[in-house]
């Protein structure tokens, strides 16, 4: 098998080199090994010693964002397609991402429960306060519930009740269902008397531990939104297992983690997260809202490796605007050089993209709506988060493919976990999320061919047929009558045939009699274009030497 693949590789590489040298063949230089796609990578090799913890260097990080932006221009850096994708342009399971929604059954109940079902500390009171929260801008307490589970307890700000706590949970649930690792966050209700200060509890004042007092706790709670009957609503974020290593560096790899081989800024799962962030208005993308933990393997406690998390969605769903008053969030960087110059030079006549935003004025809901939402114009809060900055249309397309899989029931389940109390809030948020979900997908499906789920299937007649799904039609995002032109080529670029097909009611289309090239392994490249206009998708097909069956060995989106 190895010899066969090596032989194929050498042969095809030679052909590719010839084809790529000055050839204007529509096939192009991309060639795939005649092998099934990889759906899991092994980045769980034992890391016996915990990698070092990376501190969040706030000022350096923010300055570097602008420095990097300028330096990249001066270095004339090329745009690069994302790495960490398999031959079908999909992301395999790893310590960064696990294919969930649309790949395996994911019931609304499971979405509602999130990453660690049954873990909410709410029913395990009283809570023992161990210390105050360190870092970040909002107050919080580090507590332990009756079971001994440690969690971070945060609160809504008084002027924005329920906004941050609900957004944290809803965003986390959706991110988890989409495939990301997230901490187990829960909206909790409790009374002041449920908080017991541990004898050794402390608050850090300028690197010095000072005993935490009742007054400190009351001062903190005075800033929080508290119900009239004294019930306090909070966000309990359970501690992530393992040794904390700080955030995920925005570029490069962890030098002391042998499993970290793909520069973070080029990881598809990290870049594609931008589509998800745009959908949710999760603009607070930064080092500090990611997390690496050195964890035990679930089956082998002696083995350790680094697992990567996304976290802190509290400023999503319009929270940044509603809590921090920054209406420009989602639309501009914190300091957006382009927008600032446009405003400066026009004496403010330039209308910034965020200006039409309107607060829906529903308790628990941020400044979040589908009106004036521009899926292509999303910008994170700062320019420091390289994966989002470098994300291209292919990354957004991949992210959109995932987010469009959420059904109304699944979205409603995630929203339900946010425990919003205003009866208008949940329906508004679900409708808004669905509207934005569809806008996001429609936008990117028009910029990258939404032909997907390409497979060789057996036709009713018994012969092989090439089948694919037009995701834009499948999700009812486009209504235009659509047909497909399928051109088959040899690897040398010789057109073998041109076929036509139309989709069925669910956007699936199949064509039989796709010609087979006479090249090695019958390597054939098929270009599929839909009639709505836009770039094609190139499907690479070869004969499986083991079974003699035709199979899709690669997908190249253009």
């Amino acid at each position, binding site marked *: 098998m190895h010899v066969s693949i090596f032989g194929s590789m050498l042969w095809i590489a030679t052909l590719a080199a010839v084809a790529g040298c000055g050839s204007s063949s529509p096939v192009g230089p*991309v060639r*795939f*090994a005649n092998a099934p*796609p990889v759906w*899991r*990578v*092994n*980045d*769980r*090799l034992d890391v016996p010693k915990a990698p070092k913890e990376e*501190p969040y260097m706030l*000022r*350096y990080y923010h300055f570097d964002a602008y420095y990097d932006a*300028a330096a990249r221009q001066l270095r*004339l850096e090329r745009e*690069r397609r994302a*790495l*960490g994708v398999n031959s079908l342009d999909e992301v*395999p*399971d790893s310590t960064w991402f*696990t294919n969930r929604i*649309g*790949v395996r*059954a994911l019931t609304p*109940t*499971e979405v509602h429960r999130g990453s660690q079902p049954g873990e909410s500390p709410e029913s395990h009171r009283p809570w023992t306060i161990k210390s105050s929260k360190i870092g970040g801008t909002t107050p919080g307490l580090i507590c332990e519930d009756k079971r001994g589970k440690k969690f971070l307890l945060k609160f809504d700000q008084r002027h924005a009740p329920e906004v941050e706590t609900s957004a944290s949970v809803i965003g986390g649930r959706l991110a988890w269902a989409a495939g990301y690792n997230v901490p187990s966050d829960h909206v909790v209700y409790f009374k002041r008397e449920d908080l017991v200060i541990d004898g050794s509890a402390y608050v850090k*004042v*300028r690197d*010095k531990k000072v005993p935490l007092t009742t007054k400190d706790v009351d001062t903190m709670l005075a800033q929080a939104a508290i119900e009239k009957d004294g019930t306090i609503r909070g966000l309990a974020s359970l501690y992530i297992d393992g040794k904390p290593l700080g955030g995920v560096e925005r570029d490069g790899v962890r030098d002391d983690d042998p499993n970290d081989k793909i520069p973070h800024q080029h990881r598809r799962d990290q870049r594609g997260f931008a589509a998800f962030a745009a959908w949710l208005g999760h603009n607070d993308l930064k080092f500090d809202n990611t997390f690496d933990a050195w964890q035990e393997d*679930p*089956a*082998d406690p002696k*083995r350790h*490796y680094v697992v990567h998390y996304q976290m802190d969605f509290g400023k999503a769903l319009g929270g940044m*605007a509603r809590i921090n*008053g*920054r*209406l420009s969030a989602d639309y501009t*960087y*914190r*300091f957006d050089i382009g927008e600032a110059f446009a*405003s400066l030079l026009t*004496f*403010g006549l330039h209308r910034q993209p965020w200006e039409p935003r309107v607060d829906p004025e529903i308790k628990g809901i941020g400044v979040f709506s589908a009106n004036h939402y521009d899926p292509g114009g999303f910008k994170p809060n700062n320019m420091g988060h390289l994966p989002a900055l470098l994300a291209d249309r292919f990354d957004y397309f991949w992210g959109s493919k995932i987010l469009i*899989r959420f*059904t*109304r029931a699944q979205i409603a389940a995630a929203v339900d976990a946010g425990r919003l109390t205003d009866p208008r809030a949940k329906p508004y948020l679900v409708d808004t999320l669905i509207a934005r979900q569809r806008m996001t997908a429609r936008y990117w499906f028009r910029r990258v061919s939404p032909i*997907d*789920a390409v497979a060789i299937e057996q036709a009713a007649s018994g012969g092989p047929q090439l089948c694919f*799904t037009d995701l834009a039609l*499948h*999700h*009812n995002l486009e209504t235009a009558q659509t047909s497909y032109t399928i051109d088959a080529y040899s690897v040398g670029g010789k057109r073998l045939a041109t076929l036509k097909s139309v989709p*069925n*009611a*669910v*956007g*699936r289309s*199949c064509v039989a009699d796709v010609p087979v090239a006479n090249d090695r392994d019958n390597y054939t490249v098929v270009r599929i274009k839909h009639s709505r206009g836009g770039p094609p998708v190139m499907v690479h097909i070869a004969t499986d030497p083991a079974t003699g069956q035709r199979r899709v060995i*690669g997908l190249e989106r253009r």
Partner: protein
Amino acid sequence: MIALCGSTATAIADPETPASEASETPAAPETEVPITAADVAAAPPPGAEHGRLDPLDRGDGIARRIGRGLLWIPRLPFEIIAQPIRGTLYLQDRYDIVGKLTGVFFTTDRKAGVFPTALFETGFGLNVGARAMFKDIFGGQEKLKMRVGFGGQFQRVAKIELDTGNLLPGPVTAGVEARYELRNRDHFYGYGNGDLEMATLPIDPLVDDTAVSTRFGMRVLRVASHLRIELPSNLAVTLTGAVAKKTYKTSDYLGRSDTPLEEAYDVERIPGFRDGTKFLYTEAELAWGTRRAASFYDPPGMRGAGNLVLVYAGRQHGFDEEAKFFRGGAELQHYIRLARGPRVLELRAYGELVTGSRDEVPFTELPRLGGRKVLRGYEVDRFRDRVATVAQAAYMWGLSYDVAASIFVDAGRVHSSLETISTADLRVGYGVALEIYSSQGMLVRTELASSIDGGLFAYIAFDPAFDTRSRVERY
């Protein structure tokens, strides 16, 4: 990749629902089985999942490499500027150098501290010194501040200041201040609105408005106190009392365009110059202020709505047969939010007068215009006389959430009496400003100002342009 399948059509009741949804959600356990190292033992490592035979990265083309080489020219100065800043920020974030230094000068709770200061003042030079601060010792946000300094605007300065914070009952605050200043670089341009000229013969400033750029020295001893009462409906009353002694001398400092005071002016005809002045000043001020950010969505401290109406009347009671006169003034501010952004029109009118005559009011006690606050685009204290009026307008617009630009124009003049007030021969200054805000309010404001009479002035300030200093601070 979704395992989408089937060529059978499903009725679509809801356009947002994928047609095949019903068939693609098989029953399955509702708890995810975590992936283990054993599960992926045979899988390829990260980076080998692509299945591609052609090179993933074809490298840079020759044109890009040439371009990159050429861009080394601008990149070098860019790096020379940026790297020290990066390095400093890195060291600060990594080792909290400022925090550690602060720890040397302050107590752990930051309630008390003694620390050195260095301040460069444009046109005056470097001032170095030390400050001491004690705050919230009695839990009422009260403050005791002390300062000594040498150089710059002051040859020597020593100041002690106590503010009661919330210690007093109700909406009452009070403060006491004692100050000693030895100044050597203050400007004197004579009286009135005269154009700047070179001195030929010593001018009698009381009858000749010709302006010559000169400097003088001054020793000030002052003890002042104030009581401020916040009233309902955004009203506030401030009662102030001060005892001061000032003596004057010619300056031994000369700027590039300065003429020695005694060559330019007949110092005998400058009221108070020879003998100095000692006086008691009492004042009542009534203010109605509603200035605020126009919206929650504007940065805190970025005024976009509201008004300020402020009037005051004071009595300066000179000791030892010195002049006794009243000082009065009024200030109006109005903020109009034109649009989101925010885009704000800021308007201000300010007027001030003294009742004493030109020849009896000590020259440093006359209303003055010019400098960073009133009539920008002119030198500090460029115009002085018995009456001063100025109107200011600025258009401010947001560049980003916490950065705003503004253009402004100030027009004003001084007058020898109320009867001579006119809008003729107005002096007009104008300029641009950049303001940076923090979550607490204005962080810094930089201004570039000029005037119809020329000149260019750069200011850096840490408070809004339309914040007026009290008379005790100014005179």
